[in-house]
């Protein structure tokens, strides 16, 4: 075991933390910063519930030792909305009922955000393929895929005007 001081930028805020070598990023987010939107599912990066953004790219926080995230800019599901205004992805998830129990939703929304930053004009097959690492056990995939496509349409419309 070893002790380390790390700097993180989480949802736009700089944080300096003392962490143990074996503390995971998800534990720091949930238990030290109280950002419990990020869910702990399988713990072995199979389910996608713990997905956060590292810059613009998605990463599963259950497999990252916090000390390895030193210097990272992280966005959790709490950091997506600005001034209480939902993002197009969040809005589409709500409007299309792409949420059942809600446990997978933060990871779904974060991964979908990364998807649309990578490809603003995806088709259905692309969305399904991209979300293949995010499990929903309420079988809500149809609405989730529709929500991502709906958000893409809205964002394209907004960019065109």
């Amino acid at each position, binding site marked *: *075991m070893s002790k380390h001081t790390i700097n993180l930028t989480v949802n736009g805020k700089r944080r300096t933390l003392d962490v143990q070598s074996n503390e995971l990023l998800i534990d720091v987010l949930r238990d030290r910063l109280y950002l419990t939107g990020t869910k702990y599912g399988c713990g072995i*990066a199979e389910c*996608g519930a713990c997905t956060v953004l590292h810059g613009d790219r998605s990463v*599963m926080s259950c*497999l990252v*030792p916090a000390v*390895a995230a030193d210097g990272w800019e992280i966005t959790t599901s709490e950091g997506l909305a600005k001034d209480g205004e939902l993002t197009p992805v969040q809005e589409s998830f709500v409007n299309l009922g792409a949420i059942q129990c809600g446990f997978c939703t933060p990871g779904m929304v974060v991964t979908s955000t990364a998807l649309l930053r990578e490809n603003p004009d995806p088709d259905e097959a692309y969305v399904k*393929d991209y979300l293949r*690492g995010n499990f929903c056990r309420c079988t809500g995939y149809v609405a989730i895929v529709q929500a991502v496509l709906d958000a893409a349409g809205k964002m394209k419309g907004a960019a065109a005007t």
Partner: protein
Amino acid sequence: MKNFAFVNARSLEEAVGHLAALGPQAYVVAGATNVMVDIRDGKRNDKTLVNIRGIDALRGIRMEGALVWVGALTTIAEIGASELIKGHAPALYMAAQVFADPTTRNSATIGGNLIKASAGGDTLPPLMVMEADVHVKSARGERALPICDIFTGLGKTRVEPDELVTHFTFAPQPHTAFMKMGQRKSMAISVCTAAAYATVDGEGRVTDCRIALGAVASTPVRASAAEKALLGIKVDDEGAYEAMYGAVQGDINPRPHSVRASVEYRRQIVPVLVKRAVRRAALGDCGPRVQP
């Protein structure tokens, strides 16, 4: 969480210094997609993680003279988005498209996929048909190992504990392809995979070929009997593959009682994947995204 210590290596020299000093205590970590799972499973305890994730010199895809150079820290996402890989190593490009899921691909590295030495590592059969060299460095010096005889057993390679994989090199080869059969698409460890290099003459007859298979033995394997049986056949003649169907059985040794597939199933599926990989390879481009 299990116990482990952590050191951050900011340069290649620092990294090999840590490996030399720590000996078997060291456990190299980059994307952490395998390492943390193994720690959680209790397969590795009380190690010191040597973090190499920040060493930019080990990252990237470029031409070095006539060879393609791929850094060990290059992520699967970067490989799957690379036009250079798409043109010069379609098999590797295709493997990156079906590797785990997009989020895992953002972290998982090609060097990690090699060192994990899983029989089903998706990038390994492509690297084998490319006959890639694996370059390693230690405090003792540098050397290059041919990938086709680097695997010594499940999870084991000829890379010594004090050596760090730095990069891969291989000659460009557009006539390669990769096929994967999994139980489902997402996060599925392969039931079996096949990579092929195949060139054909004006009549569509195979003039040269190399086949490598994943998840059909304790390590990824070159299928030399299948390679011999494929020479000279017409790639679009369905019946011509019959000899290979028999020959490839001698190249593989599927594990009995596997949770993913029976021996009989794998023996049926492997030749079909080989045939499809050969046909795709002979075409000389990735085509659209393909799944068997």
